[in-house]
């Protein structure tokens, strides 16, 4: 069901300074895509930059079978992409990778008595699941698609925690609020221009301390994810994070995009492909580098 195709852009908007929302006709059925999966796309038809760029699926429109990505211009590839307009064409490989596990599912693990003994979440289902979705900056992209799916599930509450540098970089807040009454939005800004003045992980820490969260999904800068991981371990709460690594093939063939994950034996490690076993991993699996 993954595919490689040239597609048309249907719309592109700069939704905040330097942040673009780009929609295209999906070459695959969006109903089969999982939140957290990504597309690998070529920003332009040149050998420089050479590689495609990975972007999480940020939104799907089931009616039109369209996909949108939300991206920040950080370098040449994204700058080229930002120049594209309606009807321009580019190649899309995807959907790729393994996305977030929607509850309930066997892929979620809750550590009991430390990270070593783990059990599938099914064996430990709270009757009412209290979810936190934690986004740092453009990390909201895969989480928005996740929210599009979560909002239709029964028996859960969703706290959306968004951390951005400043209110100017706040993305999709209105769209998130109008998703569902189950969703509650918490904001944190580095410069205090809106919401909590400080890091989004501090909000998460408060919620966890108050034992208000059963499950966490997070995406954002690796430094943030590392703190999220520490908090989850400390409070013995399961969660999943979406990682980023420089990619080569995007499909699991080249072994470029690996991250260090816990191995089968104690203190051992193994390399996991972010493009294939990830980009979403159970938070306890990852060995965070300093």
């Amino acid at each position: 069901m993954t595919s490689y195709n040239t597609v048309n852009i249907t719309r592109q908007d700069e939704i905040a300074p330097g942040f673009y929302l780009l929609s295209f006709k999906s070459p695959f059925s969006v109903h089969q895509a999982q939140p957290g999966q990504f597309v690998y796309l070529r920003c332009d038809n040149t050998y420089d930059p050479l590689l495609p760029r990975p972007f999480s699926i940020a939104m799907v429109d089931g009616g039109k079978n369209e996909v949108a990505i939300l991206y920040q211009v950080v370098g040449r590839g994204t700058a080229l992409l930002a120049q594209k307009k309606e009807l321009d064409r580019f190649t899309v490989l995807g959907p790729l990778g393994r996305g977030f596990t929607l509850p309930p599912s066997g892929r979620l693990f809750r550590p009991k008595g430390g990270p070593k003994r783990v059990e599938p979440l099914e064996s430990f289902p709270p009757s009412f699941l209290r979810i936190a979705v934690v986004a740092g900056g453009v990390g909201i992209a895969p989480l928005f698609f996740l929210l599009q799916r979560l909002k239709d599930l029964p028996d859960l509450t969703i706290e959306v925690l968004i951390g951005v540098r400043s209110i100017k970089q706040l993305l999709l807040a209105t769209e998130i609020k109008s998703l569902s009454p189950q969703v509650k939005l918490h904001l944190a800004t580095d410069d205090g221009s809106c919401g909590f003045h400080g890091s989004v992980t501090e909000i998460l820490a408060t919620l966890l301390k108050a034992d208000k969260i059963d499950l966490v999904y997070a995406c954002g800068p690796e430094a943030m994810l590392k703190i999220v991981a520490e908090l989850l371990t400390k409070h013995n709460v399961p969660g999943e994070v979406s990682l980023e690594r420089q990619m080569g093939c995007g499909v699991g063939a080249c072994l470029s995009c690996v991250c260090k994950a816990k191995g089968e034996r104690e203190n051992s490690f193994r390399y996991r492909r972010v493009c294939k076993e990830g980009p979403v991993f159970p938070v306890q699996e990852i060995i965070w580098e300093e």
Partner: protein
Amino acid sequence: MVDLTIEIAGLRLKNPVITASGTFGFSQEYAPYVDLNRLGAITVKGITLLPRSGNPPPRLVETPAGILNAIGLQNPGVDYFAASILPYLSQFEVPVIVNMAGETVEEYAVLANKLSELNNIAALEVNISCPNVEKGGLQFGSDPAAAAEVTRAVKNNTSLPVIVKLSPNVTRIETVAQAVAQAGADALSLINTILGMAIDLKKRRPVLGNIFGGLSGPAIKPVALRAVWQVFEEVSLPIIGMGGIFTAQDALEFIMAGAKAVAVGTANFINPRATIDILEGIENYLRENKIKRLSDLVGAAHCKQ
């Protein structure tokens, strides 16, 4: 109809388009995009005697018209390959070339022996040119005598055709080619990646976990083409050309320089259907130029009018 078949080291390929080792995994990953049965051959990721976890990340960085990689031969080892990967590959009607590497001559010998006991392997590609591992690899590929020794060790332990893959990181690639030819190699693969590096200005440290990496992609095409040309002039073994082949035009340049077949590497990352696009492009070229047999083009650029 044009005749795309080509013979290399006793192997008859239905067409000259092969996957380059390490860029196509074990081919499952590309099966959704490519009809594997259409390929001339599949060369798998480098296999070693024991599993290897590879180099610490970062393992890849983009450079102008190229990439540097330092995977470090991460692979599950020959036993896992035999048990779990070869059966998958055997379903297809496509010759499987196994790329193999070792840290000592002995290891190459044992590995060759093990591989030769398996079914459904069409040929061995001996990697003596990997720049990304501390022991073995480049060490053998940059010394003609050592290269010959590895070649002999492999030849003595297999009845499969032996393709030796050479490194461009040498003063005279023809000399190494000659040495492995005399040691009994049946064919040559040229080229492996060129040793390079990149520096992260923010960290003031090399980008790659391994410091050095191997440069591949369009950037190295001129160097690869030159290597094929030079070896074609001095050694009579069949050549599999590779290095920056992204289009049928690129492939045809290699063929005219003397390659009997071509391997597609980094291009797979940019266009997962690159192999097929190249194959179709070659076929169209032959048809449009009324060339009946691809083999008529091999080395064509050498003949002075």
